[in-house]
């Protein structure tokens, strides 16, 4: 399989310890890429036991450099196009180009709240980050790739929530449906520039995305955070043909394939990664 030596990757939503963005950044670095790691928060809190001292973006830069690659870290609010342009400019100044974008940044929003009870500010916040943010990030990076004229690879992390109804999380589901539409439209717009645009629909994964939900469950059930997490995930695992939740490393494997030469003729595809969940 081709390696990524000499390539420059730009990752959003990279700072969570157990996050997909972090795993993808390390995977691409291990395959030879230099990596720009961005996140709204420099060091998001992880509630997993043992993660208390997590160093966020700075720690990831250290991990990438330990692999012999170069890294650039930046905090980035994907809702602010001027901020995105600033970070892209910094990345171009440091590396001279960006070959790969993996857009992983997203928020989950309230879980178990029906639309009739969902606050307008929550609806707007989720759509703004998960959908509008995806537009703004891909717009800026696609522009840089087009200007360079050497093609490129864009991977958008969507969700299986974008394939069906999601009662209790309608705004998240609607935003993720939107990211799939964005992926397919962008693929058609950018095909002539030899920029592949593909998406990943993760099923159920062990990440930090639901840390706060587990905290609320733990409080309601009078159990520890880890007990609440385990109970929830054991129940979810029974719904998955593969019998377990996915890992961030498995997302990283798929992302690596999608940014490699092996997927040169694939564009506009959104692949479900869910251990048989559809």
């Amino acid at each position: 399989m081709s390696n990524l030596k000499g390539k420059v990757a730009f990752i959003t939503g990279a700072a969570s310890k157990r996050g997909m963005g972090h795993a993808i950044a390390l995977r691409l670095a291990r395959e030879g890429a230099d990596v720009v790691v961005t996140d709204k928060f420099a060091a998001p809190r992880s509630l997993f036991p043992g993660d208390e001292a997590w160093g966020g973006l700075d720690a990831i830069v250290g991990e990438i450099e330990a692999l012999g690659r170069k890294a650039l870290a930046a905090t980035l609010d994907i809702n602010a196009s001027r901020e995105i342009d600033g970070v892209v400019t910094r990345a171009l100044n440091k590396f001279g180009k960006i070959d790969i974008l993996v857009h992983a940044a997203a928020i989950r929003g309230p879980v178990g709240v029906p639309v009739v009870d969902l606050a307008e500010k929550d609806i707007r916040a989720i759509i703004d980050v998960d959908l509008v943010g995806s537009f703004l990030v891909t717009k800026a990076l696609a522009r840089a790739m087009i200007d360079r004229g050497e093609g490129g690879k864009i991977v958008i992390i969507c969700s299986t929530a974008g394939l069906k109804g999601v009662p209790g999380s309608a705004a998240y589901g609607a935003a993720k449906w939107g990211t799939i539409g964005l992926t397919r439209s962008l693929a058609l717009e950018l095909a002539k520039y030899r920029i592949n645009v593909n998406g990943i629909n993760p099923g159920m994964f062990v990440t930090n995305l639901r840390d706060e939900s587990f905290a609320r469950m733990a409080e309601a059930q009078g159990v520890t955070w880890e007990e609440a997490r385990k109970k929830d995930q054991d129940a979810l695992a029974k719904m998955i043909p593969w019998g377990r939740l996915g890992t961030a490393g498995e997302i990283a494997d798929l992302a690596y394939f999608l940014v490699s030469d092996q997927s040169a003729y694939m564009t506009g595809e959104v692949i479900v990664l869910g251990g048989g969940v559809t």
Partner: protein
Amino acid sequence: MLLKDRVAIVTGGAKGIGRGIALKFAAEGCHVVINALHIEGARKVAGEVEALGRRSLAIAADVSKSTEVSTMVDQTIERFGKIDILVNNAGGISLARGGAIDNTTEDDWDRIIDINLKGQFLCCRAVVPYMKKQKYGKIVNVSSMGAVHPPAPIIHYHSAKGGVLSLTSNLAFELARFNITVNCLLPGPVRSEFFNEMFQGAPDKEKEDFFERLGKRVPMQRMGTPEDIAGVALFLASDLSSYVTGESICVGGGLPLTPD
């Protein structure tokens, strides 16, 4: 190397996409059994696999006949002791009477369904016991973009390839607990021997002009190559896809999405 010391059977491996997959797998460390209807073509590709430093075995078998499939699997086990990967690529089409329903005889239908759908069922059924036993397996079924977006009416072939999508999702569900992934890829237009029958006796330029016109209908503005398809088959046959199962992946340069 992604497939070091794995053993794969590639059906329809003597030419086109099958040959591309066999050589890609061999380059990644895999020993490859090359199946084809006729032994000469299979032997040639088996030689190419061996030239890459891997072991190979050429087997002539009609995948639509269960006895021949069983013999193929027995020979593979006898030679290699295991089967890690099955690529169901063998397929065929006859356009002698076109593909419209009015001109499709019952015999045409049966034959094309047998080759393109029953053949995949028979090969899966024959290898699954070995994969279950070793608690590991990767099955890659080759469908066609025509299954979801027919470029022309070819009712028997496209129906068979549509059946492959259901075969894939059903089997993926059934085999998940045995650590066996089952996925499917849908190639778009690929420059291969697939089009030979259409251009039998025609000058090369006519074929090239056709390929160019077809390529322009693809968002990426070119036809695919066996190498393009083999790249995705490699992903699905490797442990990079260890949590991907039941998926059908289009490899068509942006098809079946259409810009208009």
